[in-house]
């Protein structure tokens, strides 16, 4: 991580990203886009009024093949871009602070830190059947200053994350100098 320099006695305890299931749901539109050129001719052939249009999806011709290749290339590149943004969004817990890194789009990046001694309350929220089964939830970290509030959404096992945060909040305050 180059977003912030770790202090002399500081080390990374854990990093968290959005749950893989939520990432897969983000990939779903791209998967549908990738399937469309293959499924559409078959679906058109099933509906007699539209059956003649199925002939337009001729991927043996040079133009049809080029269009299919471009379609798949754009879909693949977009999906890879989504993976890049997923990976670059992270929460980092060190023994002295919590840092949130938000890569909203390319070239739009936000990095915020909250010193652990300022943490006043940590709340977890798991709502819904699938989140409960897969252990997906939110964590809200509130600081002593009411203006600062960190929220991690859709992270795996928020209770474990909360316990780790609270462990370091209670263990390290005397070692940290608040600037």
């Amino acid at each position: 991580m180059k977003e912030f320099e770790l202090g002399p006695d500081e080390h990374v305890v854990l990093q968290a990203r959005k749950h893989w299931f939520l990432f897969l749901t983000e990939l779903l539109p791209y998967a549908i886009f990738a399937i469309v050129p293959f499924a559409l001719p078959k679906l058109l052939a099933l509906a007699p009024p539209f059956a003649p249009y199925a002939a337009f999806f001729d991927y043996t011709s040079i133009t049809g093949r080029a269009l299919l290749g471009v379609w798949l290339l754009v879909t693949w590149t977009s999906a890879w871009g989504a993976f890049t943004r997923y990976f670059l969004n992270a929460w980092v817990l060190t023994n002295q602070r919590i840092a949130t890194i938000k890569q909203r789009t390319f070239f739009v990046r936000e990095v915020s830190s909250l010193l652990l001694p300022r943490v006043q309350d940590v709340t977890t929220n798991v709502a819904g059947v699938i989140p409960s089964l897969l252990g997906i939830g939110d964590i809200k970290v509130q600081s002593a200053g009411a203006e600062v509030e960190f929220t991690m959404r859709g992270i795996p096992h928020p209770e474990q994350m909360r316990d780790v945060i609270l462990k370091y909040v209670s263990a390290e305050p005397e070692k940290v100098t608040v600037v």
Partner: protein
Amino acid sequence: MPDQPLQPFAPPTALFEKLNLSSIISPAAAVEWALYAVFAFWAIYTLVAIYHWLKYSHASWLAFPAMGVHIFISLCLMSYALSGNGLFLAPFLP
């Protein structure tokens, strides 16, 4: 609402002739240049994404495999679009 069945419309094969563009550029050349434009856009997008990977995730073991897989699959798809040879993707492509 007409009760006539839908008729397939003819693809614009004569579009270039109607617009008198065939004397300027051939359809094959137009497709080729369109592909180059798409590939140029892909290259810029990929460079931007790789810049972010290298700048912010250089310490991750996943950075280089992610970039390598993206470039490899993209090159296969480009090869398919240009020549019909999808390399290792060939079994999955028509």
